């Protein structure tokens, strides 16, 4: 396995590509990064992900794998060093459950709060807060979702606090409520203090500018 080349097609601002970068770094897997100039999709991307035409795509020994959480599972199975998922099947099920919860519930409600206006925006923000509260129940009193060290859910969601703060600033909305989710909030800070995760973060000012651009485009400017 280790002999074959690993390539990651990604985008500097994408949190989904960031998941894969974090996993590759944590597992000490050598890889070549190919930055896509979205929205111009390269022929390589269209060839490697004809179904969704999206990044991230991992290419290992010429074979492509798409969908960030699918890639994370693949990395853990193809490289045994520094596992991301726990050993115990029940714990693995919990990790999968919470990673999906982030994608299926947290993300859409945060995006709604970002793109909607007025009452709809407030309603979406409330839902996003409630989803974070529920997510907190998956963390409990642990240091990380993975326990003593970062694991699958931390890698899947570790960037979400930072991204949500940007959404709050740009869309003038409140989602992270310290009183309501103290454990999750301290996890937001703690997870990004992990050196490997911290050093891979894209420049936050550039991400903010990009978000501002999206917001203007999606909402016509006002909140």
């Amino acid at each position: 396995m280790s002999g074959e080349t690993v390539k990651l097609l990604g985008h500097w601002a994408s949190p989904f590509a960031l998941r894969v970068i974090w996993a590759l770094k944590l597992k000490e897997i050598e890889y070549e990064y190919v930055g896509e100039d979205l929205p111009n999709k390269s022929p390589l991307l269209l060839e490697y992900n004809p179904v969704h035409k999206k990044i991230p795509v991992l290419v290992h020994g010429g074979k492509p794998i798409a969908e960030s959480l699918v890639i994370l599972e693949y990395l853990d199975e193809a490289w045994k060093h520094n596992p991301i998922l726990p050993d115990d099947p029940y714990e693995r099920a919990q990790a999968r459950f919470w990673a999906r919860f982030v994608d299926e519930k947290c993300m859409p409600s945060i995006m709604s709060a970002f793109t909607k206006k007025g009452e709809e925006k407030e309603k979406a923000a409330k839902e996003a807060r409630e989803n974070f509260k529920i997510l907190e129940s998956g963390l409990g009193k642990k240091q990380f979702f993975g326990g003593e060290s970062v694991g699958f859910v931390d890698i899947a969601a570790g960037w979400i606090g930072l991204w949500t703060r940007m959404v709050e600033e740009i869309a003038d909305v409140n989602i992270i409520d310290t009183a309501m989710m103290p454990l999750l909030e301290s996890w937001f800070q703690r997870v990004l203090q992990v050196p490997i995760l911290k050093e891979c973060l894209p420049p936050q000012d550039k991400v903010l500018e990009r978000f501002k651009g999206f917001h203007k485009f999606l909402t016509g400017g006002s909140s």
Partner: protein
Amino acid sequence: MAEVTLLGLWPSPFVYRVIWALKLKGVEYEYVEEDAVYNKSDRLLEYNPVHKKVPVLVHAGKPIAESAVILEYIEETRPHNPLLAKDPHQRALARFWTKFGEDKSIALFTFFITEGEEQVKATKEAQEYLRILEEHGLGNKKFFGGDEIGMADFEFGWLNLWLPVMEQIAGVKVMEAESFPRLHAWIQRFKELPTIKQNLPDHSAMLTYFKDRRAFFLASAKS
């Protein structure tokens, strides 16, 4: 496996995925029917506080929710008659298509809860996804899993009975045999497998149930 309980709802294709996996792997379990739509029991709310839905698998008192997560759990705790190949890339493909099925499931049956122009539009969209599924997911394989059925076959297993029932009630043909020959051939093979043949809900009960559901959805859309 120690005591296993499955909380289910008899017309649910999500529940049937789990039933097929348990039956295929020879896992003894107790089935508990939940009125998960109209009258959620305390037991359901306790075992799936996050989503309050079925299926929920309870193994030695510990609950697991979300059908794809449950299938992975069953696969890991009962390797007999595997649902996933040994090769990591094949496993990644199975997970990719399972996710495709989940992400597109609402789009795939919107035709059932709409009428008129909306239904025409929804049918076209469903057909686009089925085309992608047939071309890229199934291709010329016997099953999604290759020569043997796997996780992705269970993900799309609803196409064999639920889809024709919904098509009949909604009065629209989504997946014509001439337009989707490979998917149709796959359905014929899938239906004949003993695990599937012996574990399907009653056809006329399905017609009654889904007729009511369509009426309910159309009425809610109007109000």
